[in-house]
């Protein structure tokens, strides 16, 4: 068992330090790179918080949709393959909902401020 603080607490502490203490002191192209760096740490923090729940739900949906067992990557490969072959499409019961939920979960980690995502969140 690893000790505390958790990875989430550490990445968040580093991101906050860069945001609050370093950003005001940096200019030019490095200010842009610093913003990217902070965004990356924020993304990691979100993924650490959200990935486990999202992955479990995604695997459960895929298992049902495909009627097979496997790792998350194997299940996604199988779904990709069926769509490519035309064996599954938007008329397949549950497929559209699954793709929407999976994509929303990705955006919640990757780009929660993306305008399309904000709009779709408001639909629920």
């Amino acid at each position, binding site marked *: 068992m690893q000790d505390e603080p958790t990875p989430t607490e550490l990445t968040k502490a580093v991101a906050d330090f860069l945001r609050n203490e370093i950003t005001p002191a940096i200019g030019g192209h490095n200010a842009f790179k610093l913003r990217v760096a902070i965004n990356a740490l924020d993304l990691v923090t979100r993924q650490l918080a959200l990935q486990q729940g999202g992955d479990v739900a995604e695997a459960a949906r895929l298992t049902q949709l495909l009627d097979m067992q496997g790792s998350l990557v194997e299940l996604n490969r199988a*779904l990709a393959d069926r769509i490519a072959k035309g064996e599954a499409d938007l008329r397949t019961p549950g497929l559209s909902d699954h793709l929407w939920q999976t994509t929303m979960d990705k955006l919640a980690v990757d*780009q929660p401020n993306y305008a399309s995502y904000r709009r779709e969140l408001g639909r629920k």
Partner: protein
Amino acid sequence: MIEEQLGRCVASWCPGATGVTAAAKLSGGASQETWSFDIVHPDGVIGAILRRSPPGYGAAPSRAAGLDAEAVLMRLAYEAGVPSPKVLHVLQPRDGLGTGFMMARVEGETIARKILRDEQFAKARPMLARQLGQIAAGIHGLEVAQLPELRRMTAAKEIFELERDYRGFDWPRPVFELALRWLRDHDPGPSDEVTLVHGDFRHGNLIIGPDGVRAVLDWELAHFGDPMEDLGWICVNSWRFGEIDKPVGGFGTREDLFAGYEAAGRRADPDRVKFWEVMGTLRWGVMCCGMMQRFRSGPDHSMERAMIGRRSSETEIDLLRLLAPRGK
């Protein structure tokens, strides 16, 4: 160093020029660079831009038109009245600067967030979609016989290349598979008319001032194909920068874009434009994945590239909004 070299080159074609100052690299990977500099001249300073592959970097990537072709296209566009920087000089071997060309520097803004939000562009914004329609018509109206050799693209070829690139990443993306199927099922076939296509007609490649569009840049991806591709590409949500209800670059409507296009004597085909918008959305998604690959395999191991890889999911939600829209 670079200013001396530039100065020697400029003296060979610009009578009266006494030197070059303020040389600054604007952007550049390993194989292609953009420099800004001022030509000192008794009649006043001339702002200029150099776009080049440094000596030793000749071959362009397979999709690229090549810098020589870019210079020809820019000159022809300028002569046809398409807002374009004037080409001043095409580099010669004796210049010792590599391959590429020099052009007049056009003042203005290329950064989308400023164009969409800053007060100084408030009057221009409502005009831009129509202007871009007219400009696209100008590009598509260039006489094919005059143009340099460029790759010939069709929807089927583009789908093939996107699929090949996507499969090369070996990472399953069911939404991309859905989009590939949709594109194959809805391929409208070769267009009746094959024209010059700019290939990257979007924010970043447009210099905009308070008075509207001042220049179209970057002909690197120019090719022959379906002219509706350019109109679809500028409608891709990734270029709306948050203004998602204004499909044309986040500033205008498709109707205005088409009206400008048709006022210039050409016909827009909204169904084909929609098709190319889906294609463009997938294309940007595949390009984002490509950035991740280049980050991983080097030589550009930058966190910017890595983070662009995490933007491919943006195109997945946009593809779902296009292909499987949910109710209100």
